[in-house]
Each structure stands twice: as C-alpha cells, then as structure tokens.
C-alpha cells in the first residue's frame, strides 16, 4: 500500500499540488459521441441562428445579467414604461378582459387554501413556497392562507435580516428529511420548504421562477415603486387573482423537464409543414410586433421573432404558464400587458392571445410593444389564418395536433422507458410520453425528482460531472452531458450497463433521423 504512495509517477498524486481544482477542467466538457460532432451540429441543432437567448445551461438563468439585458433592449425597443397610474390599471381593474378575472376568481375558489397550518396534512406537503415583502408581510403561500401564516413569515423575514445585519447572507437550513431555502431578491423575499431530494441550487432556481412570475405581472419598476412608496404595502392587492398562475408554475416546476433544462419542447411536425406555418406567421407581421408564437398546450409549434430580438426560454415558459393557467383565452381574443422579465424587467409588452379555433389546442401569442395595437394584431392573426388555410399545411398541422407526443417504443430499444434529450445550441428538447409506471402524478414527480438530482450532480458548480449511471431498485438511470447536448435515460431495472451504452448510440441516431420532425431547424425572423 505504501509503495505506490511514494511512487512519484503514481497517477494518483494530486497534479497541481494545491487544493484548488484545475480551473480549465470545469468547462472542458467531453467531445461528442461521434467524431466531428461539435456544438451546433448535435441532433436538433438549428441550422440558422438560435431563436432563444443563447442559453448554454441553467447556470445563466441564475446569472445577474438583468442590468445588461435592460440596457441592451432599451436601445432597440421602446417599451411602455409603467406609469404612475399603472397601479390602478393593473391591480384594481386587472386585465382588460373581465373574463380573465372571472376565471381567476373561480380558480381561486378551488385552491385548497383553508388548511390548518398546525395540522399534519399541512406539514406533509412535498414543497411549500412562501413569498413575503421586506416588511415581513405575506404575499403568497402555496398552501394555507397568508393570514394564518403571517407570524411564520414574520420569523422568516427576521432570520433573513438578522443574518444580513452581520453582512452575511442566509442560504438554507437543513434538517432530517427536509430543507428550507431562502432567496432575497429585493423588494421580495422567497422561501421554499422542500422534502424532495433537490439541491439548494435547484430550489433557489425554482424560487427565481416564482420571483419572475410576479415581476412578469407587475414589472420590477412598479414593484420597487410600490414598496418605496409604502414599505408595508400589502402586495396581494395588486396580485389579486393571479395566485393560480404561481400555483400552476409550481406544478410545472415539479413535472415539466423543460423548466429544469431551460429548454422548450416542440410539437412533432414535418419540417415542410412547420416551414409553411413559420412563413405564414412571418408574413403576417406588423410594425409593433416583436414575437409571434404558436403553441399547442405546452409545446411550441413555431416562433418568429424580430431580427436581433431574442426570447429567453424563461420568458417563454412564463408565457406558456399564462396561457395554460386560464381557459378565458378560449372565449375570444385576449389583450393583456405582460412583462418578459428576462428581456426587460422595467416595461410591459402587450400580448394578443387567442386560440386559432375555440376547440383547438393551437394558441397564437402575438407580442407587441404598443398598447393601442389590439386591432392591428387581431388583423395579423386573421392574415396568418388565411394564409395557413390556403395551403395544405393547416391539414397537416391538425393531424399533428392529434399526436402531440410519441411513444418511446418508436425508438426500438428494449428496457428503455423514457428519455429527455436537449440540444444545447437550439435550446430545444424532446422527450416521449410517460410510460405506464410513471403515469400517476406521484410517479411522474418521482421520475422528475430523479432527473432533477442527476441534473444537479452533472451541473455542480465546483465539481461537475461528465456522466452518471445510477442503478436502483425501481429503475436504472443514465445521464450524460457534452458540449452539444444533454441526455437523460430511464431504463427498467433489468437494463444492463452494456445496454445503456449501446442505447445511447442508437437513440442519438434515431433523434438525428427524426430531428426534422422533433425540432425547429429553420427559425424565422420578420
């Protein structure tokens, strides 16, 4: 034993002598599986420029890049500044649509809020989320009423400020079986209490999503203004009726791999049909239009953007959440101000949201800079539909809507139950429908939890990994990151390591073959 220890050439010796990890290695991901495959050429990579803000990884989600983003976008675009009276505009009267409000009211009724916060059932929730103001006033609680929790939230704020008084920052509290994570994003404080296996970083990222959800309703400018004006303002007055958006966002965070991977999934569609849809959308432009987005449920059909303007996937997820959280948009054309916080936290866009047909899943979101532009955009929609119907693409699109997912058996790998593949350069991902053992909500969230913990290990800030293989009693998992893609596979417990290795190659070939259908290869601009 001692012999090899003193052998100078032993490969085990710490190479750089100091305790510091070799800096270079952190970013030096392994090359692609097939020779010559580099970033931008992995299956699913767009052929033109990416349509999203170039999001390499989830790390840049947490980066403090807002200030820069603001500067940059303000040069190009004049967004509507929230005015003094925006308060009344936004809060008291709500959206221009009465229907929205009604819908929200009814949704609110079904929230199981009136829980006894001293009860076992309340404590047993998998994940609590609390939002409070810096004065310690409750703004949001996922479970239980804010009133009942006001003293608990007071304690949370006290802990945050106590630690800050020592010129330090509180991050989290760990106990057996659960952890409490704190995020202070002035003027709000967000707290998560979770029994899941997620890391602090993952939970903090989820709290950031909640923070941006609130910003998207009010803009940061208005949020700051309100609290500068009156420190102990009750923000619930401004957010009344929007709780279900946060509720729904939290559900998505527990179940949708897109939010975890900072990526969006596309509706499978032949590339010729998608190109027709894109070009029809491209043709139906207006001066104030920045983004035209066609979605089907939580899948993207296509996205057309103004040249030089990029949509951050987080903003897109917030739009998805806005549309999917309320059915009122089905009843007619919606017109709502929305702040896209990763684009610009200071101003509102105005979104024209409408379903293509009342019974259809296809929803068109037209994002404009002009609040008076409703009729103009309504006309854009009409022009888009006209074009689409004239061409056979509409039929194909309707077909595709009937099969928005695919089964993993199409790949033809035995023991492979599920996978998630993200093309890094395009910010898009693909994943088959959940197979039988994961169809209940509990099992779905358990599988997501497994992916989350793999993701967290792969992207560890100081000791990232290239790959993980994890063999358990319920399933075997394999995760792999390269400079071009991220891949997560779930096998039955009968799957072997040899199978996993061959499955990766086979799956990458299959995705390459299907990439026309599964990804958007030709993103368009106006």
């Amino acid at each position, binding site marked *: 034993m001692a012999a090899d220890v003193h052998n100078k050439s032993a490969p085990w010796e710490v190479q750089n002598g100091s*305790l510091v990890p070799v800096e270079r290695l952190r970013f030096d991901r392994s090359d692609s599986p097939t020779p010559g495959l580099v970033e931008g050429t992995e299956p699913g990579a767009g052929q033109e420029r990416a349509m999203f803000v170039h999001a390499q990884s989830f790390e840049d989600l947490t980066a403090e890049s807002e200030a820069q983003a603001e500067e940059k976008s303000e040069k190009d675009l004049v967004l509507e500044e929230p005015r003094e009276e925006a308060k009344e505009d936004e809060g008291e009267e709500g959206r221009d649509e009465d229907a929205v409000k009604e819908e929200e009211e009814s949704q609110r009724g079904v929230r199981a809020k009136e829980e006894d916060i001293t009860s076992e059932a309340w404590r047993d929730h998998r994940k609590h989320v609390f939002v409070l103001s810096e004065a310690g006033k409750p703004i949001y609680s996922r479970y239980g009423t804010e009133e009942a929790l006001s003293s608990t939230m007071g304690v949370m704020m006290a802990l945050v400020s106590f630690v800050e008084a020592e010129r330090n920052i509180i991050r989290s509290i760990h106990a057996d079986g659960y952890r409490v994570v704190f995020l202070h994003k002035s003027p709000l404080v967000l707290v998560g209490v979770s029994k899941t296996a997620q890391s602090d970083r993952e939970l903090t990222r989820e709290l950031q999503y909640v923070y941006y959800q609130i910003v998207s309703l009010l803009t940061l400018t208005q949020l700051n203004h309100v609290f500068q004006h009156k420190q102990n303002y009750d923000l619930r007055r401004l957010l009344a009726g929007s709780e279900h958006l946060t509720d729904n966002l939290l559900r998505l965070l527990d179940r949708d791999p897109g939010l975890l991977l900072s990526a969006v999934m596309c509706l499978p569609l032949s590339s010729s049909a998608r190109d027709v849809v894109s070009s029809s959308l491209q043709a139906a432009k207006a001066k104030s239009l920045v983004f035209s987005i066609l979605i089907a449920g939580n899948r993207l059909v296509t996205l057309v953007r103004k040249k030089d303007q990029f949509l951050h996937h987080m903003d897109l997820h917030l739009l998805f959440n806005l549309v999917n959280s309320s059915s009122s948009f089905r009843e007619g054309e919606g017109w709502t101000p929305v702040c896209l916080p990763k684009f610009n936290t200071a101003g509102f866009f105005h979104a024209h949201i409408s379903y293509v047909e009342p019974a259809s899943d296809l929803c068109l979101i037209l994002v404009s800079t002009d609040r008076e532009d409703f009729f103009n955009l309504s006309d854009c929609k009409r022009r888009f539909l006209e074009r689409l119907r004239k061409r056979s693409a509409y039929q194909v699109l309707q077909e595709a809507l009937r099969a928005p997912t695919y089964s993993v058996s199409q790949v033809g790998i035995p023991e492979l139950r599920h996978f998630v593949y993200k093309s890094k350069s395009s910010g898009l991902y693909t994943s088959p429908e959940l197979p039988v053992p994961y169809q209940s909500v509990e099992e779905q969230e358990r599988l997501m939890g497994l992916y989350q913990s793999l993701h967290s290990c792969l992207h560890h800030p100081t000791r990232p990994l290239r790959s993980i293989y994890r063999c358990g009693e319920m399933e075997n998992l394999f995760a792999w990151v390269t400079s071009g893609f991220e891949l997560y596979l779930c096998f039955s417990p009968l799957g072997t390591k040899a199978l996993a290795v061959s499955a990766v190659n086979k799956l990458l070939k299959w995705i390459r073959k299907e990439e026309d259908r599964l990804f958007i290869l030709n993103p368009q601009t106006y």
Partner: protein
Amino acid sequence: MLMISPRMASGTQEKQYNPSLLNFFIYNPKFGPREGEEEKKILFYHPSEVEKNEKIRNVGLCEAIVQFTRTFCPTKPAKSLHTQKNRQFFHEPEENFWMVMVVRNPMIEKPNKDGKPPTVEYQEEEILDSVYGAVLQQCYSMYKLFNGTFNRAMEAGGVELLTQKLEKFFYRYLQTLHLQTCDLLDVFGGISFFPLDKMTYLKIQSFVNRVEESLSLVKYTAFLYNDQLIWSGLEQEDMRILYKYLTTSLFPRHSEPELAGRDSPLRPEVTGNLLHYGRFLTGPTNLKDPDAKFRFPRIFVNTEDSYEELHLIVYKAMSAAVCFMISASVELGREFCEQLDGLVGPQLTLLASDICEQYNINRRLSGPEKEPQFKFIYFNHMNLAEKSTIHMRKTVSVSLTSVHPDLMKILGDINCDFARVDEDEEIIVKAMTDYWVVGKKSDQRELYVILNQKNANLIEVNEEVKRLCATQFNNIFFLD
C-alpha cells in the same frame, strides 16, 4: 488557525483559505429563560474572548432557527444553517443541551489594484454537511468518553461543575480538530480491523482469556495490532470512540518519538526490563522510577444503561497494544502495575512477533503487490469495519489522501445520496478529470472505488469493479 496555500493566477497573488473553526458553543435554553439572563444559557463558548452580547446574539439565532424549523417538523429540528460566509451545525446530544459548531467556508482572497481591500470569494459548495455534522457528534462522544454525560455532571455539581468540565475538555480538544482534512471517513467513524488467520486469532483470544483470568480486576479488554483492531470486549459504540481516541491521539503521540529514533523501547531506563518490550502508554512511564505516578485516565462506557466508570490502561509491546479496563472504584497502585507488566509484557512481546511473522507470510503468499488501477473505501454499518486504500496514514495532525480533494468530495456526495434512501443502489460517475468514481451500497455495506482509467467506458469500469469485489470482498453480494 489559517492554512494558507498561495496560488498564482495571471501574475497576481491569490490566497486560498481552508475551512476553519469560527465558533463552538454549548447552551441550554432552559437555563436563562428570562430576559436579561440570556448569558446563563451559555455553558461553553469558543473563542472565549468574544464579547458577551455577540455570544448572546449567536445563541439567540440558533434558538430561533431551531424553533422556526419546528413549524415544519416538530420532531426533526434544524441540523445545519448555510450562509454565504459560513456553515453552522446543530446537535442536541442530550435533551435541551445544544452543541453548535460554526465553520467558515473556504475562500479565495483576490488582491485589488490601487490599494483597495482585496475581494473575498466564498466557496459555498465545498463543505459537506454529512462530514462536519459527524465531526460535531464526535466532539460529544469524545467528551462523554472521558467525562460522562452532561446530565451526570449537572447532578453531581450543577452548572458550575459542568461548565468547568466543558472548559477543561474542549479547550484542548478543539485545538486538535483539523477541519480541512475531514472527509468521508469521519462520516463512517469506522474501525479498521487487522486481517488475521484463524490460528493467530485463537492465540490472541486465549491470551486475552488468560490475562482476564489472572487479573480478575480487568473488566474489559481490547487488542490492537498496527493501529488496527483484532479483539474487543466493549460495546460497539464505546469501542468506536475509544478506537478513534487511540488511533488519532494516543498512539501517534507515542509512536512519533519512536520513529524519530529517540526513546527506543530497548533503552532500559524507559522499559525497566530487558526481557520484553512491553510498556505502559497510559499511567507510569517507568516502573523503576520511585516517583512513578500510577494514575490512569478515566473513561465512561455504557452510559445508556449501567453507566460504568473505568480506568483505561493501555499497554504496548512492539506493534501490539492492549487496553485493559478496570472499574474506577478500585485503587490501582505500583503492585498491580508490576504484576501486570510481569504477566503481560513477555507474553505480548512473543505474540507481537508471532503476528508480525504470520502477517509477512500471508503477504508473501498473496503474491507481489501490483500497482493497482484503483483505490477504494469500504464500510460496513453492522460491524463498523472500515478499509481505505485512499488514506495513507491518519495521525493527529494530518490525514493524507492520495487523491484529489474534489474526488473525495464526489465520494461524499454519493454517500449523501445513499443515505437518503434505504435501498440498494449503485452509482457510477465520470468526473471532469476523467476519473471514474463508483459507489455501491448493498445491505448495510458501502463501497467506493476511484478508477484511473481515463479511456475506459462504462462497461469496462463495471468489469474492473467486479474483479475488485471478487478479490477483496468475495463473500459480499453487491447489486449489479
């Protein structure tokens, strides 16, 4: 205490600071319930020169954190608090007695130009909760081994006696905490067993029986060779902490002078006897010395039920060490020590050379040692058996590992993963440095392997680990 290892980065000098102990305190919230009496709660505080109000504030924060977490789970309060600059670990070993250890995160100090103060960057992901949580629990176990429980001290002499004992013990003990070298082995707190053939094992057992028969005062015996345990009559938990004390504190204190060539046991003025190499590691250093002191350290075992206080006699001949434990109510003097020395010394000397011989034969039989392509740590929760080929030698001051600290932390991460679910699991990861790390958990046993085969694939790594299991642990089943 700061360990500084400067590192050069683009011409400017950066300073890297290892994790270090900021505070260590023990309090009981019941002792000063009224306002203005908060200071009474504090039983021990390190460093003691901290200003009173700051002590009270820090204790107050801990109380608040513990109370706050009871909202979410009344029975499982907080175990650690993470902040940007430090981590605090909470442990309630006896009801209402809280021990808190505050460890500063490692940090990098980057100098700024124009005389501005340097920028400090805290590395918040470097400290593993499992490791330092275990270190804190060990602090209590070690205190209890030599002092008994907090409550016993309270019964015997009230708060005054307890604070005295705490002060006396922790003042010295905290100086021996080397936080920067703590790792997975602290989480296990295992015992390394000496591998032995049946014959030699039986010889040792009969030796122990003979001694216990002749010296009827002896209540418990433990036998170690080469710092590894062979036989113990103590309960597992008691042996675990005694083993820790022997191998990290007592043995290194006595073996280092030997290594340096001084105080050789052959010199008669030390041993007082040329017929054997036996000598006392606790108690009298020289039996011939007329002023020799016959005081042995007291230890407390079985504190849960019978609560025994014992004399700890550690006697060593060459690489063999024996612990004899005798009820503290018995007065031990010169006569007993001479009797023990005369009886045990020659036999133990003989036994030690037997073991050494046998060990060398076995080594030769197993063939020449090849440079292994892997390093591993093994731990068995049932018998606390631990084996590491990663750690070269653990002494009081240093634990030398032969792998990069980041790899050790990946082992720690995998261990945390295993601790979360109570089922058999296997995890194979490839680090950015292309090292492969394999963790296996099967029926209370854990095995961690680091492989240095950068170009191997998953299947080859799996084969390599299978071979390792077949040669080292052929009777243990691991999930495949």
